[in-house]
């Protein structure tokens, strides 16, 4: 979608809110709008929503200095500055650190923690001139699929405020959907960008493991974590990717050279010549019929656009949720053992000795899902159970990798629903952790295989609830995903 620039000056806040990042960029370059105006529009939208009886609750903090950052960007532009993201407002998930600002991972244990340094991705965005709007709400330490496990309260889905926005980057997705931010950083360990993108009807990209530096992202599952993006357009995903993925980060040994910084503007591509596999395991009867219906329409579009599609069987996909909920909690139990009240964060008061201080701090500081995962993680790593759980899961993960490598010899992309269900009701699964975990059946494979995956807003249920469609590619084939999604967007969005 493109917006004639001359309209913009006539637009009120609400209209500015609806622009994509790329449209804002063009408007800023044309001098039709200022960064300060953009920031004020989002602040107004946030403030207005906050007074709602059922607020979205996407921001845990709207930065008081956002307008000031925007003013600086406007001044820089007036002085000839031309950073790729100059003056563009972006919301940041509360687990990605910005030096000097609070970073709490929506946890009581990090209350008051002010990041002493910035994440590499933040540094790169900042250097390109981005303006940070605020911190986005999330499931505590990114553990959850509904954004209900936050010390700041649940995020509500802007499309139906009694339903979840998905998790764990629910705040990021809801802000973009509710037009309180044009773009947001999230993080994706098992689907935490794509699931909320699907539930909120926006685009969500989880790049390949290694595309973006993890330095400064508070670790959850270190072999799975990746910063991702929530956006209103595919073009926006590509724009920010080209800035954030600029080369190997010497501070993250798992980051890789991708060349995405040199990618030119997106082109819609013909899909002829593309073979797209549909894993039978992810379109089974277990999937909600309305979701399947939206997916079928997408599949028909793929065919009409020239792609060949075929259903393929990848039985090991049925084991992904189990693998994921062993490996991720194992790594999480390790990563979260540093939160003990000794050096930073919150320390429980009134502990009579050191051991009591540890236990009390963690008991008070962590919420139920985090505790659950720490216990699972320690169980699967503990002596006597390591081989049966952790080692077995890693072995099946290697099998999955082999199978997926073979699959990608035959097909260019995989397509599936992003979630087996439309957004569910708040409270529906919060007491049934296993049911919550099964929400991640379609999204965990990409994390386990380090592949890039994208969720696009495929359609709606009869109740108007968003339904996402997921594309997954070979590692570092982000461009194929983006171009395919871009082709779809040009025919469907607007």
């Amino acid at each position, binding site marked *: 979608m493109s917006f004639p620039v001359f309209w913009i000056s006539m637009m009120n806040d609400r209209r500015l809110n609806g622009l994509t990042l790329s449209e804002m960029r063009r408007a800023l370059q044309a001098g039709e709008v200022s960064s300060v105006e953009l920031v004020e529009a989002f602040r107004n939208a946030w403030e207005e929503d906050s007074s709602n009886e059922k607020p979205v609750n996407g921001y845990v903090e709207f930065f008081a200095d956002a307008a000031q950052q925007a003013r600086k960007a406007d001044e820089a532009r007036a002085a000839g500055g031309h950073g790729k993201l100059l003056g563009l407002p972006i919301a940041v998930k509360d687990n990605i650190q910005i030096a000097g600002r609070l970073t709490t991972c929506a946890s009581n244990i990090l209350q008051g923690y002010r990041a002493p340094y910035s994440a590499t991705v933040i540094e790169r965005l900042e250097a390109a001139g981005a303006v940070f709007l605020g911190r986005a709400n999330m499931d505590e330490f990114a553990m959850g699929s509904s954004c209900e496990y936050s010390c700041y309260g649940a995020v509500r889905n802007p499309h139906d405020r009694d339903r979840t926005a998905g998790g764990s980057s629910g705040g990021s997705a809801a802000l973009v959907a509710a037009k309180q931010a044009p773009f947001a950083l999230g993080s994706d360990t098992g689907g935490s960008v794509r699931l909320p993108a699907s539930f909120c009807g926006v685009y969500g990209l989880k790049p390949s493991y290694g595309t973006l530096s*993890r330095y400064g992202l*508070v670790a959850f599952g270190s072999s799975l974590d990746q910063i991702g993006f929530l956006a209103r357009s595919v073009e926006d995903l590509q724009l920010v990717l080209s800035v954030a993925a600029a080369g190997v980060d010497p501070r993250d040994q798992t980051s890789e050279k991708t060349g995405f910084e040199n990618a030119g503007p997106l082109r819609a591509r013909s899909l002829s010549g593309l073979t797209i596999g549909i894993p039978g395991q992810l379109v089974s009867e277990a999937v909600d019929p309305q979701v399947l219906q939206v997916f079928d329409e997408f599949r028909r579009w793929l065919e009409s656009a020239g792609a060949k599609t075929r259903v393929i069987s990848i039985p090991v996909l049925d084991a992904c949720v189990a693998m994921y909920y062993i490996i991720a909690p194992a790594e999480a139990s390790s990563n979260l053992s540093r939160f003990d009240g000794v050096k930073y964060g919150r320390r429980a008061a009134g502990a009579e000795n050191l051991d009591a201080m540890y236990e009390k701090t963690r008991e008070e500081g962590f919420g139920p899902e985090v505790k659950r995962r720490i216990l699972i993680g320690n169980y699967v790593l503990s002596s006597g159970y390591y081989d049966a759980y952790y080692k077995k899961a890693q072995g099946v993960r290697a099998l999955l990798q082999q199978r997926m490598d073979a699959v990608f010899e035959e097909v260019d992309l995989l397509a599936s629903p992003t979630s087996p269900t439309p957004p569910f009701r708040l409270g529906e699964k919060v007491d049934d952790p296993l049911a919550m975990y099964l929400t991640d059946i379609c999204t965990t494979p990409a994390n386990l295989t380090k592949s890039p995956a994208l969720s696009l807003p495929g359609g709606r249920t009869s109740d108007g609830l968003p339904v996402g469609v997921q594309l997954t590619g070979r590692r570092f084939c982000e461009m194929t995903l983006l171009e395919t999604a871009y082709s779809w967007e040009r025919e469907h969005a607007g």
Partner: protein
Amino acid sequence: MKYEVVIGCEVHVQLQTRSKAFCRCPNTFGGEPNSRVCPVCMGLPGSLPVTNSAMIEAAILAGLALDCDIAGVTKFDRKHYVYPDLPKGYQISQFDMPICTGGHIDIPASDGSLRRVRIIRVHMEEDAGKNIHPDDGRSVSYLDYNRCGTPLLEIVSEPDLRAPQEASAYVQAIREILRAVGVSDCNMEEGSLRCDANINLWVYEDGKKYATPIAEIKNMNSFRSIRNALEYEVKRQVREWEQSRLLLEVAGKTTRGYLEAKGITVLQRAKEEASDYRYFPEPDLKPISISREMIDALKARVGALPAERRRRYIGEYGITEQDALNLTSSAAMADFFEAAAAGHPEPKRISNFILAEVKKYLNQRSIGVDELAVDARAFRRLIDLVDAGKISGKIAKEVFVDMADTGKDALAIIEEKGLIQIDNSDAIAQAVDEVIVENPDSAADYKNGKEKAIGFLMGQVMKKTKGKANPAMAIQLLRAKLK
């Protein structure tokens, strides 16, 4: 009661690199508390480790020096335990794929023979911080994280040591070797070398062998305290055996700390409190593959190491294994020997002189060869005088002591003291004549075919010339005159 002492050591050595193991903080000793820390070594949220290539290099050098096999692929693992000086709640260490395995070093055993101590593994890990207990009346501890992230090697031996003094000798040998390759200063006072020992007894009774419970002894901060702590522990275990006859299978392993001031060990952790470290591969770091070429290049740098030197001494110089071991007891001694023996046709003679005379002198004065007033070149000049027939080997021994006492050169001493060998045949002939006249019986014995008698007569000639007669010349003259 007949028993054998069984000891295995875990030695931790801090590597001398410019920066820490996984971050760029300076790797130095001391300093203001918490002045050498960053997000990575403090384990702040979101920080990631980045491996220092110099740590890998140093670990390979150490492994080669200890005769280990170097792994083709190695990886790091997380080891989890709780202590306030461990900021992440886990230590980056190595579990099942250590960088070096299967080495050994040889040390002099308590019975004077050679003891081969097998090394199970050498692995890399990061050091923890330090805690301080202030005397301000408050029930608190202070934490200083400066030491956090210092690169460490852990060297684990088989339980091949059979006496407390062997454990001490083993640790000294490790220190010597690692200093020689320059990977660590191995300073026990500053904690750059630390040793824990596992010790128990094999008791022999009624034709059976019984193993007593293993105690891991910690907190031994000097070579002397290693010996003292283990000697105390042997006595304690003997007593415990006699009182309770507790077996290893039943009691397992406990941890005990050495209290230097009291000279005793005390229980720190009982068996049932054994830790579950929940090791798993460090996901933030990729496995490291080490090429043959890299190992070979580093091997060249380890050329002058004790084991390598011993092989050369035995193979090329024809020196016995025991002598080779003694010569390489310190790098300084081996250096001294090699410099003195350079280009000499019979290095074995030089080795004999060093191991007898030089060692005796050093031992009597409890000094090292590097503190000797005679350097290798001056020493070689002394040997050259013997070779040239200027002095006898016997006189050389006296001259050496003079040289070492005064720092004077050999030639100056023998000239000063008139010790130059008598090469003048007239002077020797006169002495020979006198000896024959004074010892008619021996002269007659020789003439009657008693070859042995010549030895006695030679001794008399040497005595008469105060040891200065050229022995070859003297014996030639003796034989001629007694024909």
